[in-house]
């Protein structure tokens, strides 16, 4: 088990490094801070002087190593070109809103996916199962942001039940959370269903039934516990999807989180902030994957012995 965790940990660090490298070079190619930070009437000599001061005249690799050094040791991504404060501070201010949204969506997804998936598996090819399959099919073809806009039009504008933008109260959370949840709900529902179907055919379920356990106990204690293993892995992996979906959802609902900050920063060319967000996002995704793998290995010995 320990070797497995260490191996996965090293892999994760490698992934983080590569991602930091890609994000650094992407933006290195893209932007010349001298042009962004200096007034347009700056002389050529001023620009050269500025570049020297900022260390921008050094070779790219040295600049990258310097960037990495600052980020890893001090969490210093530089200052935002626009807001003139530390990029990490900006990210920190916006992070809670995104986490709130993502957690709400994740809870919602599992509240729906688990019971519906289980029922669909037990009553296979029933009306319920077919409806769930149909909903999953439609859900996968639905552009997330369009779904959000339709929710706004129906529940915000026509029915006036819910607020359509901002984040002041719990009511503000409802539509964005539903939108974001719809992004990953189809996959999870199918996963619970297929996991349950797999398990329900196993001998130990027959044994459990044969020894006279009541059906609910068989389903929850014996079947679902085993069917949940792939779900754990997938939820970990979905962190990345969820954050990606948050970028879109936050833009649609004017939700003041990291995703909207990312879109705004990319549009305005505020690269230190973009870099900070990419690295923070990647960090979350990698940690999520790592935790999911370790958790799955803890639950299921077959994985760690592979």
């Amino acid at each position, binding site marked *: 088990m320990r070797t497995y965790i260490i191996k996965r940990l090293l*892999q994760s660090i*490698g*992934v*983080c490094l*590569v*991602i930091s490298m*890609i*994000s650094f070079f*992407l*933006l290195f*190619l*893209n932007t010349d801070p001298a042009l962004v930070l200096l007034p347009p009437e700056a002389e050529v000599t001023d620009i050269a002087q500025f570049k020297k001061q900022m260390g921008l005249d050094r070779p790219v690799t040295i600049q990258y190593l310097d960037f990495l050094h600052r980020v890893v040791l001090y969490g210093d991504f530089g200052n935002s070109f626009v807001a003139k404060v530390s990029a990490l501070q900006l990210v920190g201010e916006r992070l809670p809103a995104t986490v709130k949204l993502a957690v709400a969506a994740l809870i919602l997804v599992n509240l729906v996916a688990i019971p519906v998936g289980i029922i669909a598996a037990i009553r*296979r*090819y029933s009306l319920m199962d077919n409806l769930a399959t149909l909903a999953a*099919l*439609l859900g*996968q*073809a*639905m*552009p*997330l*942001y*369009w779904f959000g*806009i*339709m929710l*706004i*039009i129906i529940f915000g*504008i026509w029915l006036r039940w819910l607020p359509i933008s901002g984040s002041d109260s719990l009511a503000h959370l409802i539509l964005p959370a539903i939108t974001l949840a719809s992004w990953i709900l189809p996959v999870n529902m*199918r*996963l619970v*269903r*297929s*996991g349950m*179907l*797999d398990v329900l*055919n196993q001998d130990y379920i027959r044994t459990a039934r044969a020894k006279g356990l009541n059906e609910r106990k068989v389903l929850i204690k014996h079947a679902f516990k085993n069917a949940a293993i*792939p779900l754990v*892995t*997938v939820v970990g*992996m979905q962190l*990345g*999807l969820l*954050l*990606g979906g948050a*970028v*879109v959802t936050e*833009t*649609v609902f004017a939700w003041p989180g990291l995703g909207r900050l*990312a*879109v705004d920063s*990319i549009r305005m*060319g505020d690269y230190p902030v*973009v870099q900070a*967000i*990419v690295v923070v*996002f*990647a960090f979350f*995704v*990698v940690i999520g*994957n790592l935790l999911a793998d370790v958790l799955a290995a803890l639950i299921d010995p077959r994985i760690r012995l592979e």
Partner: protein
Amino acid sequence: MSELVEKIESEEVSAPKGSLIFRKIWHLRLGVIGGLVILALLLTAIFCPLLAPHDPYAQNISNRLKPPVWMEKGDWKHLLGTDHLGRDLFSRILYGSRISLVVGISAAILMAIMGVGLGLFAGYYGGQVDSVISFFVNCMMGFPFILLAMSLVAVLGPSLQNIIITLALTSWPVFTRVTRVETMKLREREFILAATSLAYETWRILLHHILPNLLPSILVLGTVEIARAIILESLLSFLGLGIQPPIPSWGAMLAEGRNYMLMQWWLAAFPGSAIFLSALGINLLGDALRDMTDPHLRKS
């Protein structure tokens, strides 16, 4: 993830026989519907100059924000109404099919070439080659996809061609994963061993012996990826990083329509429906193709 997906896909194997056949026919029927939707989409894209009642770029400010024909004040001249510049929404949606199809198909082909190539190498050579490629795939999977695509477009500049490149550059790992696993399985089979012992060149084994066996899975995956690329293109356009106005892209139209959703809901609703229907049609066809090529199903 791919194992899980495979698991989901092979779940139908143990179904009772009668309902399995029913399910199969049902699936195929859905596949036919999907195929028809795609055919309609293709025809629209090819013949939209003939079908469209108006020039999609023609502005008419005095005629702006007209509602669709069935609403009060709507008229037959503008079936789905007009947008904020008085352009005919219906014509613009018809023309939008071109953008979506071109982006979807080219991006899928490009990512398939990249992904399948790398997957073949990783699966065939194994060892170090496999480790390096797999590590790279893992990195790509760890990268927050939308952010990567957004930054890439920001670097390259938002043009049709760059959107396609961006989508391909960010989505190829799916193909690599599938191809790699399948190639590994095939590598051990007798006919590949025979080809190897005949001292065929590697490229010949890869292209003539392994690749043809992978085509069904690649085709299925490619179909699904077309739908994904269409949705992602519209998403990038929606965020203002995709196809630039005034070119009629469904995503860009949706983004413009969003500013008017308080009163003119149709400006956001219809372009979105176009994306939704296209993606649904392609997914249905993809599902049916998968069922047909899936050996588990074929046997039963």
